[in-house]
């Protein structure tokens, strides 16, 4: 490996200015590019060794594309991805294959990502053979038994096929397959969202246990804020292709600062009537705008209850470090923000008016007022279907995989 010696404090994964733009083509005979869907538009993040970075956002915000671009399953349009000091974007052929061994992925739909005609033994041995690991037959067999044991499946599972397992068991196979080749980084894209709640907890516990045992680094992509909070050290919130807020998990959840994060958190139902009846709800106006034609300035300004006449519409806010005295502005402050978590890091927010909103100097508007003040731009921005069905199609959640 051409790995540069790393100090232990260096992040395992560093992403700089990553962009993934998909061209929108149309035309009968010749494909003309008529625009770009800016799925990921300039994301910087870093993940420390042995920690979990949680990436949250709604469908279509680009979180899955970001995960795929890190593994170069989608080619980034611009930006760099440093994995253990190596620029992944510059690699080709064998070195890329080598480095991919160390970064593995767990997919959302375990049935769709496991070959239905391979039994579990063959599924698990395949990555070992592909990377020339595992040695002879006996060694591979021992290794497979260890793996099954690690993910809590019986040895009898080896001879069976994916369809014979329940959803939770399939996800265990998916995880076993990812850890077969002893990776350093595991990118888990919605690892539990296809599972029933009682089974979700089993898989989450398994992921935590494996991290402790194998010293894995995780990048967990999920739409469920509660799941992300449960397993993450640092959390980044994405909206329309860029990060709007990033902070250590405890801090983010106890004092969310960006208006989008605040409304997102207030929208998540909590299974406790006492909390549900007394919490603040910040309802947002309208839907996610089309990433093919994102709003100018701050991308959230079309739905933001705190939008101001100046700056928001035309000036792109930078992700900047905010240090505020904890006054308990949290939506759900279960733990005091003053307690520094084990994994620190700055609280980054991209909003022009964070301080004013935090102090209560700016008051939010109702969704009706927001919609009214946006007028035309809501009607054309949220769907845009009236003019261009092709571009409009991209704001469908299914368009992003």
């Amino acid at each position: 490996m051409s790995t540069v010696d790393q100090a232990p404090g260096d992040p395992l994964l560093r992403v700089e200015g990553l962009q993934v733009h998909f061209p929108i083509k149309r035309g009968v005979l010749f494909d003309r590019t008529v625009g770009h869907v800016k799925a990921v538009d300039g994301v910087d993040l870093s993940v420390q060794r042995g920690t979990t970075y949680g990436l949250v956002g709604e469908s279509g915000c680009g979180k899955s594309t970001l995960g795929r671009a890190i593994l170069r399953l989608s080619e980034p349009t611009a930006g760099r991805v440093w994995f253990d000091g190596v620029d992944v974007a510059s690699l080709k052929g064998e070195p890329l294959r080598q480095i991919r061994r160390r970064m593995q992925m767990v997919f959302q739909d375990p049935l769709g990502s496991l070959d239905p005609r391979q039994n579990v033994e063959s599924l698990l041995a395949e990555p070992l053979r592909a990377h020339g690991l595992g040695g002879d037959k006996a060694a591979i067999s021992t290794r497979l038994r260890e793996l099954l044991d690690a993910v809590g499946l019986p040895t009898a599972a080896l001879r069976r096929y994916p369809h014979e397992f329940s959803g939770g068991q399939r996800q265990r196979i998916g995880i076993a397959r990812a850890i077969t080749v002893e990776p350093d980084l595991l990118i888990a894209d919605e690892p539990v969202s296809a599972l029933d709640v009682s089974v979700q907890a089993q898989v989450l516990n398994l992921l935590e246990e494996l991290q402790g045992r194998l010293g894995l680094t995780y990048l967990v992509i999920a739409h469920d804020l509660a799941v992300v909070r449960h397993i993450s050290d640092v959390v980044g919130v994405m909206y329309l292709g860029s990060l709007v807020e990033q902070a250590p998990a405890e801090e983010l959840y106890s004092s969310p600062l960006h208006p989008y994060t605040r409304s997102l958190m207030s929208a998540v139902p909590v299974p406790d009537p006492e909390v549900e009846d007394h919490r603040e709800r910040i309802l947002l106006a309208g839907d996610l705008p089309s990433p093919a034609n994102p709003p100018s300035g701050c991308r959230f300004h079309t739905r933001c209850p705190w939008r101001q006449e100046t700056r928001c519409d035309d000036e792109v806010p930078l992700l900047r470090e905010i240090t505020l005295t904890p006054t308990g502005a949290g939506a759900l402050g279960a733990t005091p923000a003053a307690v520094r978590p084990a994994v620190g890091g700055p609280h980054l927010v991209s909003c022009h008016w964070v301080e004013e909103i935090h102090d209560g100097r700016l008051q939010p508007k109702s969704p009706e007022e927001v919609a009214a003040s946006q007028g035309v731009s809501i009607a054309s921005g949220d769907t845009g279907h009236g003019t261009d069905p092709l571009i409009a199609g991209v704001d469908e959640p299914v368009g992003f995989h």
Partner: protein
Amino acid sequence: MTGTSGSPVLEVDDLAVQFTRRGEQPTRAVDGVSFSVAPGETIGLVGESGCGKSVTSLAIMGLLPQRGVQVTGSVRLDGTELLGAGPRTLRTLRGKDMAMVFQDPLSSLNPTVTVGTQVTEVLAEHRDMTGRAAQDEATELLDRVGIPDPRRRLGEYPHQLSGGMRQRALIAMALACSPRLLIADEPTTALDVTIQAQILELLRELVQGSGTALVMITHDLGVVAGLCDRVHVMYAGRVIETADRRPLFATPRHPYTGGLLGSVPRLDTGRGTPLTPIRGSARDTIPWSQGCAFAPRCDNAEDDCLTEVSGSTVPLEADGLRRELRCRHPLHATPAAAGAPAGATAASSAGASAGSPSTGSSSWSSSEGQQS
């Protein structure tokens, strides 16, 4: 809770649905489910996939196929028996007195017909409204469910609307005749959380405004906690616990309910709070005729959970606190003992939530007091 006056809109009594396939053992998807809903009341049917909650709703609406399906028991809408009613009778009731909102709005809307036509169709069928009047009413309906620029939307096709919009359009269609009963089957599962919050707020307002009885079918305990007055937890085709919202969440008595609550990561608990999953998966059940279907996954299970009792199974027992429970070894030893901790827990968690920091001062909207 709200408006529980008068006789119930819907009474379901001992409803059972059995699917038969040639050469196979019949499957009991729903097995003796009973509940009732009063006007303005919201009840929740909660359970994981395969527990029979959707089949229950289809049986109520009379939407199950005729062949190979046996529906027994009784379903009464305002006193009228629905089971065994002819297709003609059901047609006049469906859409008018009872309506349903499905999980996936794209597949429940006709993709080749404009939204406007689909909404006015309901009006023409049940309210004899056509032409201009129907158009105006449809515009009004879309506006009521919060679709901006409703007149333009009427001319558009379902694929031109976003997911949240489509679900709103479906709700508009369901509400076109101000039904007495609305069944919502996972109405927000396919939607993002911010859109989910909008739709739930809409349903909440509609129920309060019109006195419609709402049956909310969901797997999301968080949605139930915020919306439903009374909750029925289902497992393997049967209701295993029934209680009012607060006592259910404060002191779940059935091990399955407790297990579900223990498995859900909560937004307001931090990292390191352990999850206590339920063993195995929903496949690991035994038929109710041989004991408790949940016994193979239950930590409280003892030998008598697996024995057949007097031809029946573990009965659903009332404990005098508007709670019913189908369990021999519940989580809290006796009903009397459970009553006290229920109050205590509720009070302490209320205190905790009241003491927790809130940005109520800087928020424009709060649903405080809406539920109670």
